[in-house]
C-alpha cells in the first residue's frame, strides 16, 4: 500500500518530467575516446588525440604503485590478445560507462537499473538503503548500492572480480577495487559522470575521472542485442543482429 503511494508521489506532477534533474531515464553514451585510455591518447593515424579524463591527481595520471604500473604497461603491450573483452567478458565499471556503445537507465522509486548494450551487461542499483553483500562473492560488474545527494545519484560499487580492465589500454585493478560514482543531470540531454576509484593493492591513492555523457535523441532509438559467443572452434564472435 505504502509503496504505490510513494511511487505515485514521486511520479506525480513534474517530478519526473524530462528536464527535471533527478530523472536519469534514457539512453546515454560517452562521446569521447576515453574508452581507449583513461590517461588520454596521442594523435595517431585514424585516431584522434584525447586528453586524460583523470581530473585528480592534477597531472592526469593514474597514481599506480610502482609495481602495478609495470603490470599496466605489460597489459598495454599484450592488449590485442589479452583484453578480457576479446573473450566476451562483461566490461566492469567504469569501463562499461565509457564504452562506445549506448546504455539505458530505467528508474523507479526504489531502484535504478542500467542496461549496457555491450553483451547486455546490467546493474540493479537499489536506492532504498539495503547494504552491500559481504566479501564472500565477487562480480564482474561489482555490487552497486545507491543513494541521492540532492540531484546526484551516488553509487557505491564493491565486490569486484579482478578480471576486468578499466579501458582498452590495459589499465587494471584488483578485487579490492572500490568505485564511487556520481551521476548528475546537467541539462536536458547531458549527464555528468564522475567516479572516484580506489584500490589499495594497485594505486597509491584514490583518483577521480569525469566525463559528460550525451543522450541519444534519435527518434525510436533503442538498444540492440549485442551477444558475444564462442563458436565450436573456440573462436569468439559477435553475431549480426540483422538478417540483411
Amino acid at each position, binding site marked *: *500500500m505504502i*509503496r*504505490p503511494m510513494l*511511487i*505515485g508521489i*514521486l*511520479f*506525480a506532477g513534474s517530478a*519526473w518530467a524530462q528536464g527535471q534533474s533527478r530523472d536519469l*531515464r534514457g539512453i546515454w553514451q560517452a562521446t569521447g575516446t576515453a574508452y581507449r585510455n583513461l590517461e588520454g591518447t596521442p594523435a595517431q593515424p585514424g585516431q584522434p588525440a584525447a586528453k586524460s579524463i583523470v581530473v585528480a591527481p592534477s597531472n592526469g595520471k593514474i597514481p599506480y604503485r610502482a609495481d602495478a604500473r609495470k603490470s599496466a604497461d605489460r597489459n598495454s603491450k599484450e592488449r590485442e590478445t589479452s583484453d*578480457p573483452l576479446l*573473450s*566476451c*567478458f*562483461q566490461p566492469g565499471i567504469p569501463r562499461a560507462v565509457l564504452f562506445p556503445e549506448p546504455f*539505458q537507465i*530505467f*528508474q*523507479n522509486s526504489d*531502484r535504478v*537499473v542500467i*542496461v549496457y548494450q555491450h*553483451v*547486455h*551487461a*546490467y546493474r*540493479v542499483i*537499489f536506492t532504498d538503503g*539495503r547494504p552491500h553483500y559481504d566479501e564472500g*562473492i565477487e*562480480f*564482474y*560488474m561489482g555490487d552497486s548500492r545507491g543513494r541521492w545527494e540532492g540531484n546526484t545519484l551516488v553509487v557505491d560499487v564493491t565486490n569486484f572480480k579482478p*578480471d576486468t580492465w578499466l579501458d582498452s589500454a590495459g589499465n587494471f585493478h584488483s578485487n579490492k577495487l572500490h568505485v564511487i560514482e556520481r551521476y548528475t543531470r546537467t541539462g536536458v540531454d547531458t549527464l555528468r559522470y564522475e567516479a572516484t576509484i580506489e584500490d589499495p593493492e594497485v594505486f597509491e591513492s584514490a583518483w577521480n575521472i569525469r566525463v559528460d555523457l550525451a543522450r541519444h535523441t534519435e527518434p*525510436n532509438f*533503442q*538498444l*540492440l*542485442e549485442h*551477444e*558475444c*559467443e*564462442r*563458436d*565450436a572452434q*573456440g573462436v569468439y564472435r559477435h553475431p*549480426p*543482429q*540483422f*538478417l*540483411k
Partner: protein
Amino acid sequence: MKATNSTKLAMFLLVAIGAAAQSEFTPPRLADAHPDFGGIWMAAGLSAAFNVEEHGASYGTPAGPSVIVDPPGGKLPYLPGMRERASDNDQHRERDPVGQCHMHGVPRVMFPPFPLEIVQDGTYVVILAETEHGVRIIPTDGRPFLKDYSTWNGDSRGHWEGDTLVVEVRGLNGRSWLDQAGNFMGAGAHVVERFRLTGKDTLDYQATVENPSVFSRAFTLRVPLRRRPADVELLEYGCIEGERDAAHLPAVNGEKK
C-alpha cells in the same frame, strides 16, 4: 410477491457469492494507473524448463505435466518431420544453446529455475533474467518494430489491454530451444505474451507461438510466476567468462535450426 426474511437472506447470499466469484484481484497501481508488476519472480513450477510437454521421470529430469493449454491434449502441434528434429535434439543435448551461454529466447527465458526481475518506469517494462544476465526491454509507447532483426531474445513491443500487459515479439533468430528436451520453435516464429497479476504474489504468464514452417497451428503455453521473498535480489550470472564444460562435451556440430 413479498419476500420472506429467509428468502431475502438467500438472495443476498447468492448476490454476494456471485459478486465474489466475478471479482478479480485488484492489483497495486503505478501513477500511470497500470498494474505494478515490479519485483522478483520465478516460475511457480519448474517442470516447463525440462520439457513443455507432459513427461515422465528420466535421468536428471523429474516427471512433469504439460504447460501447453492450447491445443487441448497439451502436445506441440509439430508439422510432419519436426517432432523428429526435436527428438534428435533430445539425443544431443550438448547442442542446447543455453549450455553455450546464449540467452534463452522467448518464451524459454520466462521459466528457468532462476529468478527474473520486472521493472516498470513509465515508458518501458524491463525483464531482467538472472540466467546469462539476459535482458528484454519492452517499450510500450507504440513505436514500430525493427525490420529484419534476428537475435536471441528478439524485439518486443508491449501495450495494455485493461490490466493485462500484451507483448508481441518478433525478430527471434530461431536458434533457441523451448526447453531442455530439445523442443524448438524455428526461425520466423512470432510470439504474443500476456502478463496479468492474479494475486499479490502471483503473475499469470501465457505465450502464444506461431510458426507455420514448424507448427500446423498456433499453440499457447502457460507458466504462472510466483513472487520471491522481498529480500531476494538477482545475482550476477557471468557465463561465458567462466564456462569450462564445452571442452568435455561431444563436439557440437554447429548446426542451428
